């Protein structure tokens, strides 16, 4: 997001015009250098912080009436704490490297603040008026300009899903430099959809295929007929779509083969979403030799001719530098000959999406975003049983069963 877009927001602009030291960072609005009275009746400077709601240029109403504060608990000119704003105190990590000490709660008349200007102004005034009583020169209006850029953010608008839930410090565990999706079929496209919404800096897409009509029925979103007629490369099609939301989606034309394996050097995590057993073998061997962790996915849907129902499962297998011995037992890596008995290629979007979600959840567990009690490297969902099984665990010891 550009600094200009934020400055052009009328609420923030107004605060800035009045001289408040405004900054926008990690989906939050900060006012720095707010003078307040300490319990020793001295004047110190603190920071008032609120999370932001809405999109660039069009902020929504504040989602609540509370703010955070960086500093000691502010007092009246007498040195007694301002109890009217007290909510809670503790180390509150808002995002990596940024911690607030207090949360304030002060409802306006009517119950809600109409906008961020009135919300921030209210708290700053309550706090700094006491400081001015001690030191008439103390003012929050320093007119110091902080360029409110969100450098380093991949998103074109704030990740308010994380800031609303106060899980930005958890989300940051996913902010890897480079992740790759190899194969943008049904499952790979849903993988992309899910990881595009995480703060991964670069998502490298590898596929040599054209986006065709059947792909539209097992990928996220809704392609128009005109998009299909243009016969775009899959990687270009997806790079363009996700460009609406974020930066860093990088298309690589062509399949990954023996000849270009080193294109994967420097990738931190790979989602291996290919159909071909031989491609799976070539790529997985290379990733293992380079110590690049990956999740391999695969599904099989079979038609039961007797009752015309589909049956089958989807698999996601994690392979890391710490554990890869299991991979060859679970992932088919042979030739897919035409004489291969019973070969089918039925795929349905919901199972593609589920397979992708299981793979992405596994990656998030590997990164410490989700808890992972058993650290299962093998996971299988079977439609017929509605069952999800875990194997190849390295976590907690499971009671032995005979």
């Amino acid at each position: 997001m550009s600094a200009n877009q934020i400055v052009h927001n009328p609420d923030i602009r107004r605060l800035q015009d009045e001289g408040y030291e405004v900054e926008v960072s990690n989906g939050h609005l900060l006012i720095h250098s707010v003078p307040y009275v300490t319990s020793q009746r001295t004047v110190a400077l603190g920071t008032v912080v609120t999370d932001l709601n809405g999109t660039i240029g069009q902020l929504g109403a504040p989602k609540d009436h509370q703010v955070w504060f960086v500093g000691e608990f502010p007092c009246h000119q007498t040195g007694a704490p301002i109890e009217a704003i007290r909510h809670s105190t503790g180390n509150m990590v808002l995002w990596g490297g940024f911690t607030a000490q207090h949360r304030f709660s002060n409802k306006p008349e009517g119950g809600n603040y109409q906008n961020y200007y009135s919300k921030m102004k209210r708290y700053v005034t309550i706090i700094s008026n006491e400081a001015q009583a001690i030191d008439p020169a103390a003012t929050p209006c320093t007119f110091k300009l902080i360029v409110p850029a969100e450098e380093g953010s991949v998103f074109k608008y704030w990740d308010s899903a994380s800031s609303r839930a106060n899980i930005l410090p958890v989300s940051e565990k996913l902010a890897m430099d480079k992740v790759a999706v190899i194969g943008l079929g049904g499952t790979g496209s849903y993988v992309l959809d899910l990881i595009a919404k995480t703060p991964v800096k670069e998502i490298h897409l590898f596929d040599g295929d054209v986006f065709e009509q059947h792909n539209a029925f097992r990928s996220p979103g809704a392609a128009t007929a005109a998009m299909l007629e243009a016969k775009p490369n899959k990687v270009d099609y997806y790079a363009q779509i996700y460009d609406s939301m974020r930066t860093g989606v990088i298309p690589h034309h062509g399949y990954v083969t023996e000849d270009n394996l080193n294109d994967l050097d420097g990738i931190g995590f790979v989602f291996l979403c290919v159909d071909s057993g031989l491609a799976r073998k070539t790529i997985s061997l290379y990733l293992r030799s380079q110590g690049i962790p990956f999740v391999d996915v695969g599904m099989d849907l079979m038609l039961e001719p007797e009752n015309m129902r589909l049956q089958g499962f989807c698999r996601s297998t994690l392979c890391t530098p710490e554990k890869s011995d299991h991979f060859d037992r679970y992932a088919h890596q042979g030739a897919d000959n035409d004489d291969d008995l019973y070969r089918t290629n039925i795929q349905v979007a919901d199972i593609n999406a589920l397979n992708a979600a299981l793979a992405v959840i596994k990656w998030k567990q590997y990164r410490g975003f989700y808890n992972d009690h058993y650290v299962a490297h093998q996971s299988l969902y079977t439609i017929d049983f509605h069952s999800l099984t875990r194997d190849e665990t390295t976590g907690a010891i499971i009671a032995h069963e005979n």
Partner: protein
Amino acid sequence: MQNEHSEDAPGQNKTTTIIVNGRPREFVGHKITYLEVVQLAFPGATMGESVIYTVTYTNPHGKDGELVNGQDVSVKEGMVFIVGKSNRS
């Protein structure tokens, strides 16, 4: 308990009906291996180191699970197996 592991223990020659990929199959014995399940699903299927089938099972009174080459599981009446390749994406 000791009898369970003996060659001529009761149950060793018992015939059980299991469901493999939707079809009822008769199986004689106490434990069924990965390879036996694959052969029941796909008689004459090519087996080899690089050909990996995915074998998953459930049973009405037990735990769901997955079998890989070298593993087996106790057979129970009415147990259901699904066998395929899990190689599509």
